[in-house]
């Protein structure tokens, strides 16, 4: 599984890249909206984990792109809420909470297939 982890917080990106890689998931990081969109367009990803506060491009625009491309996504949010067709988790969260959500999202993907 290929994951794109997009967040403006460098420390967050680095530690989750390490954690997810150790979980057996190839993880690429991005730090802003344009970089995220470029990576999404140039190579396929199974899952996008996107910070709500990604700079320079709105998260809505990015999620619209992933939705059209059929890529699953998880939104990291400041405040709890629901974004259509997207799973979400609000800060602060524990690693196991994110891993559980990733499993739920991807298992739904597999069952749909």
């Amino acid at each position: 599984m290929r994951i794109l982890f997009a967040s403006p917080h460098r420390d967050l990106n680095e530690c989750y890249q390490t954690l997810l890689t150790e979980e057996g998931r190839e993880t690429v990081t991005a730090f802003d909206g344009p970089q995220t969109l470029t990576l999404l367009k140039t190579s396929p990803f199974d899952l996008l984990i996107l910070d709500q506060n990604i700079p320079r491009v709105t998260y809505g625009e990015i999620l619209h792109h992933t939705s059209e491309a059929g890529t699953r996504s998880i939104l990291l949010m400041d405040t709890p809420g629901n974004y259509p067709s997207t799973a979400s988790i609000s800060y602060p969260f524990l690693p196991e909470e994110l891993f559980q959500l990733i499993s739920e999202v991807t298992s739904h993907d597999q069952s749909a297939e």
Partner: protein
Amino acid sequence: MTKAQNKFILTAVLTVFTALFLLLGTINMTNFTMASEDADRVTGKLERANGFFAQMESTQQEQTPQAQTPQGQLSQGQNPMGQDQIDQGRQNFRGGFGPMGPDSPDMAASSRYFTVSFTADGESQIVAYAINAVSQEDALSWASDLYSGEDLDHVATGWTRGTYRYRIYQQDGQTYVTVLDQGRELISCYRILAISGIGLVLGTLISFVILKLTAQKLFSPVEEADRKQKQFLLQAEKEFKVPLTVISADTELIERRNGPTDQTRSIHRQVKQMGALVKDLGRMAVFSSEQDLPELSLSAMTMDALNHKAERFAAKGLDISTEIAPDIRVKADAAMMDRVLDELMENMIKYAKTHVRLILKKEGERILLQTENDSDLPAGDADQVFDRFTTLKNASSEEAGLGLSYVKDAVKSMDGRVSARVLEDGTFLLQIGL
């Protein structure tokens, strides 16, 4: 104008109204009571004078009550007062602020009254008649209406026909009814009452206008402080969230490399507590806010929340039944309402065994949002689930016990009510009334 300002104005105006009402009411009650007492003193003097003030000038007639002809018109120049009374009055009068009211030397001369006597057989006779507004026939009839014919062991006094004070007393085996016209004395009382009423209304109105004009200026420092506090809370909440997430992720990495230690467990605990504190900061910011709230479709939000969690319900094998009325709307902060619904769903997912039920409907003017799930809990009240850091016995030790506490605070900020109980069959029932 904000809710707090309106509340302040309303409270202040009500206070002014109440204070004025009590003060003016007391003054007027005292005034009327004193008028009654003054009237009773005059009728008391009439009682002691056998029902009449005037003395016949002719000494040839008997001076017994029965023999007295009623006082009709006085001859021109004739003073209705007895000479003794006149002399006594002049002796008492010192000039300037002389004795007033019942003690005035001219009291007897200016009193308008009639007295009727009743024998034991019920025969009536006018004893004294010094009044123009009432005919003698009317006087007899009026006195008969007042006197019921019963034996009295005490003097009876009271008001009759609005401005007349009566006195019923017994003397020498007969019952006397004296009726005294107090219209002139009472007119000033009624004037004061009317002026008091006008003063009450005007005073209240003026206080309202002044408060309305000055409230904005009074409250602007408070509102500014509130806005800054909210801004700070939101900013603090935001700034803490990501670092806490990074700390817990890095701690996880350390544990994977070196195994869990007491220190890493301690970091996890501290991060959890800090996370709860951060959520509290966010809650304080939202709940203290008084901005105009939008009207939301609670029906749509509930359906969205259910759909969003559908996979989680399915993953746990929970059977869901719903009764969601369409078009139920509520004025609330959208993010707060989302979180309330999220917490309710999470609660059901975590603790339900086989099935859950969600009800959203209108009950009269109120909205009922109710969740039900089967459980192993004993029957009884379960309102303690809304207390912070409190979980029931079916919760895991990892649960912080904050989710429903948030729900309670959120619902309270919308002037709603929450309750929880476990039914006899073990169904955990959570109700929110909005």
